């Protein structure tokens, strides 16, 4: 037989899903690299990973490696030898680089003269031997993003068994200090004999191990479907599903139940408890959560009842805990927690959350006076409650419930349930930003800006790679509020002046710049092209308008790319000319119609004058689309102007008049931002030629 299948398997201590995926990929890559380097022909068939094993299978691996001839071009003949015909320094350097000696070199003629060539012939070899001699080094040398050490070795997790098979034969080698064999292992280290590489998957399956990731996932999904008959459903996150099914070699889905009394707790709390601690899935029907849960076990089957009882006991214990926290928390009204904030240090010993909360109440009150004066009372009330749930035990245990816990406490203690529902959702939204009304927006904004302020003041400014205090997230929340709150046009400078009034000017400026940077990223994440976001940057002071304008520009440009490209180019040109004039200390004149000599400049002047008021009124009405449609009509006269007119005319009055016209155009364009920073089409030249 000329070829055979090749299989290598590493049996390791449990790896989480992310590690499995990385290791599977790198194992495949390591074997492929080895084969390529050693000229072993073979076809990659499949890679496997489970929590406890990594394997890779290759087909049609040739048993023999053909003779290899290589010729490496060295230095020219004339500098390779000294006058006595001995190797020169140059040649010696070349030889030592390839650890060769003079016996391996030949001088050959090329079209550029005679050169020294290093010629080597590697005789035919056996793949089996080459693999046996090299595979251990290849596997031990794989680089991972995270590893650990044990004994003299390192790998993401300890390797405890090695299987290397070429055809039906095990390769005798030592890898990670373990002799290779054709025996795989089960959970307790029981031997599993692998008959041949091709039968690997099948042999493992008879020991209840599904080596293939997709098979495992399908098997899991199928059982999940069976366990949840309509109207029951569950909506675990993709991460949770992956995490639960991915850490089993043979995932089995089971259903458990819990005492209905726990359903009196907020269902979000139960869901978090189930998922966070127990990696179980909450189950719902049309009316809401039911007293069941889904859990996944690895392999066990003949003792399912006892296993279920045990799982149910765990879930019950967790729920008891959640209930304990919640019942304790409910002994006080939410607002009564306010004074407890005095005991919570903030940013070191010198400040408390209470002080910060006081400041947030003040700032949100002031902001409300400007942006939603009718709701100032509600805003101040909500601001006061904002941090209260932080000191509850529920939030202490599940920090992700901050906001939610406050909401439920406020709701539960209210006398007027309808009003309370609204108030409590505003409170939650100020934290989570799930919904944005005036109250949640103003409170959420004041909170985030104060967080940013205190950290910037302390010099703890996020770097590009590190943001341990979540400041970027805080800024992004603020930006979302500024951009998305309906009916309120927040003005950034006004807000900064109000909230950042007690820090030095320099820090205020840093904060302002940071917020604008985050807003630009926000636009880009929303799908606004980067150059458009650069263009509208001069408009960022009113983020909401900048957002609409950016959207309108992206959309309009999408339809008329060529026109926008030409206007952008003209805008750059205008800027350059005006800059040049400024350098030469030439003052553009107010345009005098009489001095417009050529038809092209008259045309541009006429169009610009009529556009000015048109665009202005569209902009005032925030009809950006229409404004842009009007603007596009300036393209042709602009093009013609630059084609025919020399701006820097010798006649100074003509020149200054033309500069004045360009300055007017520049102002007109500036109402949309900095048009000159917008990208011109890459294929511009081509497009131009085709069109003309």
């Amino acid at each position, binding site marked *: 037989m000329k070829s055979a299948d090749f299989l290598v398997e590493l049996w390791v*201590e*449990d*790896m*989480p899903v992310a*590690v499995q995926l990385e290791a599977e990929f790198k194992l495949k890559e390591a074997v492929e690299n080895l084969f390529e380097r050693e000229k072993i022909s073979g076809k990659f068939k499949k890679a496997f990973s489970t*929590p406890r094993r990594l394997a890779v299978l290759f087909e049609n691996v040739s048993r023999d490696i053909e003779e290899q001839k290589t010729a490496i071009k060295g230095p020219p003949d004339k500098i390779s030898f000294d006058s006595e015909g001995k190797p020169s320094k140059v040649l010696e350097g070349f030889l030592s680089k390839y650890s060769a000696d003079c016996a391996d070199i030949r001088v050959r003629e090329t079209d550029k003269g005679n050169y020294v060539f290093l010629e080597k012939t590697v005789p035919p070899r056996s793949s089996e031997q080459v693999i046996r001699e090299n595979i251990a080094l290849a596997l031990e040398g794989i680089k991972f993003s995270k590893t*650990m*050490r*044990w*004994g003299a070795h390192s790998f993401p*997790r*300890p390797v*405890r068994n090695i299987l290397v098979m070429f055809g039906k034969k095990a390769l005798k080698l030592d890898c990670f*200090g373990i002799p290779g064999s054709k025996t795989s292992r089960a*959970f*307790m*280290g029981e031997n599993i004999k692998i008959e041949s590489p091709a039968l690997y998957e099948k042999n493992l399956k008879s020991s209840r191990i599904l080596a293939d990731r997709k098979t495992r996932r399908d098997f899991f999904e199928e059982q999940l479907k069976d366990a949840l008959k309509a109207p029951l459903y569950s909506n675990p996150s993709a991460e949770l599903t992956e995490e639960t099914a991915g*850490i089993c070699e043979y995932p089995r889905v089971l259903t458990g139940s819990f005492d209905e009394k726990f359903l009196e707790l907020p269902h979000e709390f139960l869901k978090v408890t189930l998922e966070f601690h*127990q*990696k*179980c899935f909450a189950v719902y029907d049309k009316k809401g959560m039911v007293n069941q849960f889904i*859990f996944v*076990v*690895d*392999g*066990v089957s*003949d*003792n399912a009842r*006892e*296993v279920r009882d*045990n*799982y149910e*006991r*765990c*879930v*019950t*214990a*967790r729920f*008891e*805990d959640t209930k*304990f926290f919640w019942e304790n928390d409910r002994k006080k009204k939410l607002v009564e927690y306010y004074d*407890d904030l005095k*005991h*919570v*240090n*903030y*940013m*070191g*010993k010198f400040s*408390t*959350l209470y002080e910060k909360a006081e400041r947030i109440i003040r700032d949100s009150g002031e902001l409300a006076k400007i942006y939603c004066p009718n709701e100032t009372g509600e805003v101040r009330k909500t601001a006061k409650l904002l941090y209260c749930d932080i*000191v509850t035990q529920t939030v*202490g245990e599940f920090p992700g419930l901050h906001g939610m816990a406050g909401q439920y406490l406020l709701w539960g203690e209210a006398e007027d349930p309808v009003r309370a529902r609204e108030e409590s959702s505003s409170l939650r939204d100020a934290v989570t930003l799930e919904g944005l009304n005036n109250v949640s927006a103003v409170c959420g904004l004041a909170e985030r800006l104060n967080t940013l302020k205190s950290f910037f003041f302390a010099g703890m400014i996020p770097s590009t790679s590190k943001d341990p*205090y979540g400041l970027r997230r805080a800024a992004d929340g603020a930006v979302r509020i500024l951009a998305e709150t309906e009916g309120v046009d927040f003005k950034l400078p006004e807000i900064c002046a109000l909230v950042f009034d007690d820090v030095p000017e320099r820090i205020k400026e840093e904060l302002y710049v940071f917020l604008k940077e985050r807003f630009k990223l926000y636009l880009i994440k929303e799908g606004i092209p980067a150059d458009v976001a650069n263009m509208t940057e001069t408009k960022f002071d009113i983020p909401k308008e900048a957002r609409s304008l950016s959207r309108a520009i992206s959309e309009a440009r999408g339809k008329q790319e060529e026109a926008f490209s030409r206007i952008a180019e003209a805008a750059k040109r205008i800027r350059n000319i005006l800059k040049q004039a400024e350098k030469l200390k030439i003052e553009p004149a107010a345009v005098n119609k009489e001095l417009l000599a050529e038809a092209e400049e008259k045309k541009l002047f006429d169009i610009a004058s009529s556009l000015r008021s048109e665009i202005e009124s569209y902009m005032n009405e925030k009809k950006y689309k229409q404004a842009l449609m009007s603007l596009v009509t300036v393209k042709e006269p602009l093009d013609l102007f630059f084609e025919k007119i020399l701006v820097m005319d010798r006649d100074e009055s003509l020149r200054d008049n033309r500069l004045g016209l360009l300055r007017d155009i520049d102002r007109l364009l500036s109402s949309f931002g900095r048009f000159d920073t917008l990208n011109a089409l890459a294929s511009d030249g081509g497009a131009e030629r085709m069109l003309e």
Partner: protein
Amino acid sequence: MKTLQDIIKTLSDYWGDKGCVVAQPYDVEKGAGTFNPMTFLKLFDKGPWRTAYVEPARRPQDGRYGDNPFRLYKHLQFQVILKPAPADSRLLYLKSLSRIGIDVKKHDIRFLEDNWESPSLGAWGRGWEVRCDGLEITQFTYFQQAGGIELEDVPVELTYGLERIAMFLQKKKSVYDIDWSETVKYGTLRKEEERQFSVYYFEKASVEGLRKVCDFYLGELEMLLENKLPLPAYDCLLNFSHIFNVIDARGGIDHTTRADMIKQMRGYANRIALMYKEMREQS
């Protein structure tokens, strides 16, 4: 049925047979068995080391007034250190479960990623929390670093949660129903203690006074390190760490302050470990 003391005896015998020094708890309050010098300091000695012991772990925040069937401010850990970790560490562990009566084949035994870290000891390791039918029963860790020092002989640390295991084996719904011995329940010995300490930790502890005690221990730590006395310095660090936990349970520490104080503790753990190691190497 195995009582709690049977379990302790069985584990002690099992690991004693594997060459462990069966040691005693270290009588200063601490949050985990790792803090016992038999683990934390002995790791810095040259050569192999194996030990096993029971350690009460005090975590004020976990107090539940004796009301919660599952959580305790003080629980018992059974701690094992094998240095260097043998290749069959995991199998030895699984067999110890069988020895105390957990049939590994009949239950859902899982190793979930949990890379243990003690920021205050400057220690971390790769490891798992071992769950048995959803119940966390053991922390299994290959130490990589302790006291800020990379460990040469990577040890394995096993920390069994004794109450959890007893509840599991005795099928109890409440920790207080565990049979400590044939005739005495866990609750008889521990329930009132849990209540009183919960009241103390959550309601009565004098935060300002305790802050002063913390400052006092910091002074002692400096003085002891200057005098090349790392062992008593280590006791001061343990005391400091426990009081820090008490203040924390009273809600007296926010996350930035916490980070600072932990950094401070880590600094001392590091200095103590280095001094201890250096003195051992010289002796």
